[in-house]
Protein backbone atom coordinates (compact mmCIF):
# COMPACT_ATOMS: atom_id res chain seq x y z
CA UNK A 1 0.00 0.00 0.00
CA UNK A 2 1.53 3.27 -1.06
CA UNK A 3 -1.12 5.56 0.42
CA UNK A 4 -2.19 5.90 4.04
CA UNK A 5 -5.95 5.90 3.52
CA UNK A 6 -7.86 3.79 6.04
CA UNK A 7 -11.50 2.85 6.13
CA UNK A 8 -13.58 3.80 9.16
CA UNK A 9 -13.96 0.93 11.63
CA UNK A 10 -11.07 -0.91 10.01
CA UNK A 11 -9.09 -0.67 13.22
CA UNK A 12 -6.38 1.44 11.65
CA UNK A 13 -7.67 4.87 12.52
CA UNK A 14 -7.34 6.38 15.96
CA UNK A 15 -9.89 8.89 17.19
CA UNK A 16 -9.33 9.75 20.82
CA UNK A 17 -12.32 12.06 21.07
CA UNK A 18 -14.81 9.56 19.70
CA UNK A 19 -13.33 6.86 21.89
CA UNK A 20 -13.71 8.98 24.98
CA UNK A 21 -17.27 9.99 24.11
CA UNK A 22 -18.14 6.34 23.61
CA UNK A 23 -16.69 5.47 27.00
CA UNK A 24 -18.73 8.20 28.67
CA UNK A 25 -21.92 6.99 26.97
CA UNK A 26 -21.22 3.55 28.39
CA UNK A 27 -20.60 5.05 31.83
CA UNK A 28 -23.99 6.79 31.67
CA UNK A 29 -25.69 3.44 31.22
CA UNK A 30 -23.73 2.17 34.22
CA UNK A 31 -24.91 5.12 36.29
CA UNK A 32 -28.51 4.33 35.41
CA UNK A 33 -28.00 0.62 36.16
CA UNK A 34 -26.79 1.37 39.68
CA UNK A 35 -29.27 4.24 39.91
CA UNK A 36 -32.10 1.77 39.49
CA UNK A 37 -30.67 -0.39 42.26
CA UNK A 38 -30.35 2.65 44.53
CA UNK A 39 -34.03 3.36 43.91
CA UNK A 40 -34.95 -0.18 44.95
CA UNK A 41 -32.83 0.33 48.05
CA UNK A 42 -34.51 3.65 48.81
CA UNK A 43 -38.04 2.24 48.64
CA UNK A 44 -37.28 -0.81 50.80
CA UNK A 45 -35.37 1.25 53.32
CA UNK A 46 -38.24 3.74 53.54
CA UNK A 47 -40.64 0.84 54.14
CA UNK A 48 -38.37 -0.92 56.70
CA UNK A 49 -36.26 1.77 58.38
CA UNK A 50 -35.72 -0.09 61.66
CA UNK A 51 -34.92 -3.46 60.07
CA UNK A 52 -32.32 -1.81 57.82
CA UNK A 53 -30.77 -0.14 60.85
CA UNK A 54 -30.57 -3.38 62.84
CA UNK A 55 -29.25 -5.37 59.88
CA UNK A 56 -26.57 -2.75 59.15
CA UNK A 57 -25.07 -3.33 62.60
CA UNK A 58 -23.81 -6.66 61.27
CA UNK A 59 -21.40 -4.87 58.95
CA UNK A 60 -18.00 -3.72 60.09
CA UNK A 61 -17.75 0.07 59.66
CA UNK A 62 -13.96 0.03 59.95
CA UNK A 63 -13.47 -2.53 57.17
CA UNK A 64 -15.79 -0.44 55.02
CA UNK A 65 -13.79 2.68 55.81
CA UNK A 66 -10.50 0.96 54.98
CA UNK A 67 -11.95 -0.19 51.66
CA UNK A 68 -13.12 3.35 50.92
CA UNK A 69 -9.62 4.69 51.55
CA UNK A 70 -8.13 1.90 49.40
CA UNK A 71 -10.43 2.72 46.47
CA UNK A 72 -9.89 6.47 46.74
CA UNK A 73 -6.14 5.93 46.78
CA UNK A 74 -6.31 3.68 43.72
CA UNK A 75 -8.34 6.37 41.95
CA UNK A 76 -5.52 8.80 42.63
CA UNK A 77 -2.83 6.43 41.35
CA UNK A 78 -4.72 5.75 38.11
CA UNK A 79 -5.27 9.49 37.57
CA UNK A 80 -1.55 10.08 38.20
CA UNK A 81 -0.59 7.31 35.76
CA UNK A 82 -2.44 9.24 33.03
CA UNK A 83 -0.48 12.35 33.97
CA UNK A 84 2.72 10.30 33.81
CA UNK A 85 2.07 8.89 30.33
CA UNK A 86 1.01 12.29 28.99
CA UNK A 87 4.34 13.63 30.20
CA UNK A 88 6.06 10.73 28.42
CA UNK A 89 7.06 8.80 31.53
CA UNK A 90 5.83 5.30 30.69
CA UNK A 91 7.80 3.67 33.47
CA UNK A 92 6.18 5.75 36.22
CA UNK A 93 2.82 5.21 34.57
CA UNK A 94 3.33 1.44 34.79
CA UNK A 95 4.35 1.62 38.46
CA UNK A 96 1.25 3.67 39.31
CA UNK A 97 -0.98 1.24 37.42
CA UNK A 98 0.60 -1.67 39.29
CA UNK A 99 -0.25 0.12 42.54
CA UNK A 100 -3.83 0.52 41.31
CA UNK A 101 -4.10 -3.20 40.60
CA UNK A 102 -2.61 -3.92 44.04
CA UNK A 103 -5.28 -1.70 45.61
CA UNK A 104 -7.96 -3.56 43.68
CA UNK A 105 -6.63 -6.85 45.04
CA UNK A 106 -6.58 -5.48 48.60
CA UNK A 107 -10.16 -4.29 48.17
CA UNK A 108 -11.29 -7.70 46.94
CA UNK A 109 -9.45 -9.56 49.73
CA UNK A 110 -11.12 -7.39 52.38
CA UNK A 111 -14.45 -7.94 50.64
CA UNK A 112 -13.78 -11.68 50.64
CA UNK A 113 -13.28 -11.69 54.40
CA UNK A 114 -16.35 -9.53 54.95
CA UNK A 115 -18.55 -11.78 52.83
CA UNK A 116 -16.94 -14.86 54.37
CA UNK A 117 -17.84 -13.71 57.88
CA UNK A 118 -21.43 -12.97 56.81
CA UNK A 119 -21.79 -16.36 55.16
CA UNK A 120 -20.25 -18.08 58.17
CA UNK A 121 -22.93 -16.47 60.32
CA UNK A 122 -25.63 -17.57 57.90
CA UNK A 123 -26.64 -14.26 56.33
CA UNK A 124 -26.47 -15.56 52.75
CA UNK A 125 -30.00 -15.74 51.26
CA UNK A 126 -31.43 -19.21 51.81
CA UNK A 127 -29.37 -20.17 54.85
CA UNK A 128 -31.12 -21.13 58.10
CA UNK A 129 -30.24 -17.98 60.00
CA UNK A 130 -31.23 -15.81 57.04
CA UNK A 131 -34.62 -17.49 56.69
CA UNK A 132 -35.41 -16.77 60.35
CA UNK A 133 -34.63 -13.06 60.02
CA UNK A 134 -37.48 -10.54 59.84
CA UNK A 135 -38.47 -9.70 56.27
CA UNK A 136 -36.93 -6.21 56.30
CA UNK A 137 -33.54 -7.55 57.36
CA UNK A 138 -33.73 -10.18 54.63
CA UNK A 139 -34.28 -7.40 52.09
CA UNK A 140 -31.25 -5.58 53.44
CA UNK A 141 -29.04 -8.62 52.94
CA UNK A 142 -30.45 -9.35 49.47
CA UNK A 143 -29.55 -5.81 48.47
CA UNK A 144 -26.22 -5.89 50.30
CA UNK A 145 -25.02 -9.03 48.56
CA UNK A 146 -26.41 -8.02 45.17
CA UNK A 147 -25.15 -4.44 45.10
CA UNK A 148 -21.72 -5.03 46.64
CA UNK A 149 -21.44 -8.18 44.50
CA UNK A 150 -22.18 -6.28 41.30
CA UNK A 151 -19.77 -3.59 42.43
CA UNK A 152 -17.13 -6.25 43.16
CA UNK A 153 -17.63 -7.59 39.64
CA UNK A 154 -16.91 -4.10 38.34
CA UNK A 155 -13.72 -4.03 40.41
CA UNK A 156 -12.61 -7.28 38.76
CA UNK A 157 -13.45 -5.98 35.27
CA UNK A 158 -11.65 -2.70 35.93
CA UNK A 159 -8.63 -4.62 37.15
CA UNK A 160 -8.51 -6.74 33.98
CA UNK A 161 -8.96 -3.59 31.90
CA UNK A 162 -5.97 -1.97 33.64
CA UNK A 163 -3.83 -5.12 33.25
CA UNK A 164 -4.50 -5.12 29.49
CA UNK A 165 -3.54 -1.45 29.28
CA UNK A 166 -0.34 -2.17 31.24
CA UNK A 167 0.60 -4.77 28.65
CA UNK A 168 -0.02 -2.24 25.89
CA UNK A 169 2.13 0.37 27.61
CA UNK A 170 4.91 -2.20 27.92
CA UNK A 171 4.87 -3.02 24.21
CA UNK A 172 4.59 0.66 23.35
CA UNK A 173 1.18 0.73 21.71
CA UNK A 174 -0.05 3.06 24.46
CA UNK A 175 2.31 6.00 24.67
CA UNK A 176 2.66 9.75 25.06
CA UNK A 177 0.71 10.49 21.90
CA UNK A 178 -1.77 7.66 21.98
CA UNK A 179 -3.23 6.88 25.40
CA UNK A 180 -6.99 6.99 25.14
CA UNK A 181 -7.32 3.35 26.18
CA UNK A 182 -5.53 4.19 29.40
CA UNK A 183 -7.78 7.21 29.91
CA UNK A 184 -10.86 5.09 29.30
CA UNK A 185 -9.78 2.45 31.77
CA UNK A 186 -9.11 5.29 34.21
CA UNK A 187 -12.64 6.60 33.67
CA UNK A 188 -14.04 3.14 34.30
CA UNK A 189 -11.99 2.82 37.46
CA UNK A 190 -13.24 6.19 38.73
CA UNK A 191 -16.81 5.04 38.11
CA UNK A 192 -16.17 2.00 40.30
CA UNK A 193 -14.94 4.42 42.97
CA UNK A 194 -17.94 6.70 42.44
CA UNK A 195 -20.41 3.88 43.04
CA UNK A 196 -18.61 2.77 46.19
CA UNK A 197 -18.80 6.37 47.48
CA UNK A 198 -22.58 5.87 47.63
CA UNK A 199 -22.63 2.20 48.64
CA UNK A 200 -20.47 2.88 51.68
CA UNK A 201 -22.76 5.31 53.56
CA UNK A 202 -25.92 3.52 52.45
CA UNK A 203 -24.91 0.09 53.77
CA UNK A 204 -22.30 0.72 56.44
CA UNK A 205 -23.21 4.07 57.93
CA UNK A 206 -26.91 3.70 58.79
CA UNK A 207 -27.52 5.11 62.24
Amino acid at each position, binding site marked *: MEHSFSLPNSGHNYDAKASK*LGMWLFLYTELLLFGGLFMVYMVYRALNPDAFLIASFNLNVWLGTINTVVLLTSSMTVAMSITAIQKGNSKLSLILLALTVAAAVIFLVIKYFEWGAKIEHGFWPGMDHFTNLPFGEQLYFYLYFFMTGLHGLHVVVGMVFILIVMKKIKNGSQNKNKNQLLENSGLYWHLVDLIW*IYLFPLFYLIH
Partner: protein
Amino acid sequence: MEDSYHITGYAEHFGTWVSLILLTFMTVFISVFGADLNTLTVATALFIASVKALVVAYYFMHLKYDPKIYRIMILIVMSMFVIFLIMLIFDYLTR
Protein backbone atom coordinates in the same frame (compact mmCIF):
# COMPACT_ATOMS: atom_id res chain seq x y z
CA MET B 1 -2.16 15.05 18.75
CA GLU B 2 -3.20 18.14 16.82
CA ASP B 3 -4.92 20.02 19.63
CA SER B 4 -3.37 20.62 23.00
CA TYR B 5 -4.97 19.08 26.05
CA HIS B 6 -4.68 19.85 29.72
CA ILE B 7 -2.31 17.71 31.78
CA THR B 8 -3.33 17.60 35.41
CA GLY B 9 -0.32 17.80 37.72
CA TYR B 10 0.58 15.21 40.36
CA ALA B 11 0.12 17.75 43.13
CA GLU B 12 -3.44 18.48 42.06
CA HIS B 13 -4.30 14.76 42.10
CA PHE B 14 -2.76 14.46 45.54
CA GLY B 15 -4.77 17.45 46.78
CA THR B 16 -7.94 15.89 45.43
CA TRP B 17 -7.11 12.67 47.27
CA VAL B 18 -6.54 14.52 50.56
CA SER B 19 -9.90 16.27 50.30
CA LEU B 20 -11.65 12.96 49.52
CA ILE B 21 -10.04 11.26 52.51
CA LEU B 22 -11.02 14.13 54.80
CA LEU B 23 -14.62 13.94 53.58
CA THR B 24 -14.62 10.17 54.18
CA PHE B 25 -13.47 10.55 57.77
CA MET B 26 -15.98 13.33 58.27
CA THR B 27 -18.88 11.15 57.14
CA VAL B 28 -17.72 8.20 59.27
CA PHE B 29 -17.27 10.47 62.27
CA ILE B 30 -20.73 12.00 61.91
CA SER B 31 -22.29 8.57 61.50
CA VAL B 32 -20.49 6.81 64.37
CA PHE B 33 -20.30 9.56 66.95
CA GLY B 34 -23.11 11.95 66.10
CA ALA B 35 -25.98 9.57 65.51
CA ASP B 36 -28.84 11.34 67.26
CA LEU B 37 -30.89 12.83 64.47
CA ASN B 38 -31.90 9.95 62.25
CA THR B 39 -33.03 11.64 59.04
CA LEU B 40 -30.45 14.38 59.38
CA THR B 41 -27.57 11.90 59.40
CA VAL B 42 -28.91 10.16 56.28
CA ALA B 43 -29.18 13.51 54.53
CA THR B 44 -25.71 14.54 55.68
CA ALA B 45 -24.19 11.22 54.58
CA LEU B 46 -25.78 11.53 51.14
CA PHE B 47 -24.74 15.16 50.86
CA ILE B 48 -21.12 14.33 51.68
CA ALA B 49 -21.22 11.37 49.26
CA SER B 50 -22.45 13.70 46.52
CA VAL B 51 -19.69 16.21 47.23
CA LYS B 52 -17.17 13.36 46.99
CA ALA B 53 -18.73 12.12 43.75
CA LEU B 54 -18.50 15.61 42.27
CA VAL B 55 -14.86 15.93 43.31
CA VAL B 56 -14.05 12.56 41.69
CA ALA B 57 -15.91 13.46 38.50
CA TYR B 58 -14.49 16.97 38.24
CA TYR B 59 -10.85 16.33 39.06
CA PHE B 60 -10.08 12.62 38.66
CA MET B 61 -12.40 12.09 35.71
CA HIS B 62 -11.20 15.34 34.22
CA LEU B 63 -14.64 16.85 33.65
CA LYS B 64 -13.34 20.24 34.74
CA TYR B 65 -10.98 20.44 31.78
CA ASP B 66 -13.09 18.57 29.24
CA PRO B 67 -15.29 20.24 26.62
CA LYS B 68 -18.67 21.39 27.87
CA ILE B 69 -20.51 18.59 26.07
CA TYR B 70 -19.52 16.06 28.74
CA ARG B 71 -20.95 18.18 31.53
CA ILE B 72 -24.13 18.78 29.56
CA MET B 73 -24.55 15.07 28.91
CA ILE B 74 -24.02 14.13 32.54
CA LEU B 75 -26.57 16.76 33.49
CA ILE B 76 -29.07 15.10 31.14
CA VAL B 77 -28.40 11.67 32.67
CA MET B 78 -28.73 12.98 36.20
CA SER B 79 -31.99 14.78 35.35
CA MET B 80 -33.33 11.54 33.90
CA PHE B 81 -32.45 9.81 37.15
CA VAL B 82 -34.14 12.54 39.20
CA ILE B 83 -37.28 12.28 37.05
CA PHE B 84 -37.39 8.50 37.64
CA LEU B 85 -36.87 9.12 41.34
CA ILE B 86 -39.69 11.67 41.57
CA MET B 87 -42.07 9.37 39.69
CA LEU B 88 -41.14 6.54 42.03
CA ILE B 89 -41.67 8.65 45.15
CA PHE B 90 -45.09 9.79 43.90
CA ASP B 91 -45.98 6.19 43.13
CA TYR B 92 -45.21 5.09 46.69
CA LEU B 93 -46.74 8.14 48.37
CA THR B 94 -50.07 7.74 46.57
CA ARG B 95 -50.65 4.04 47.28
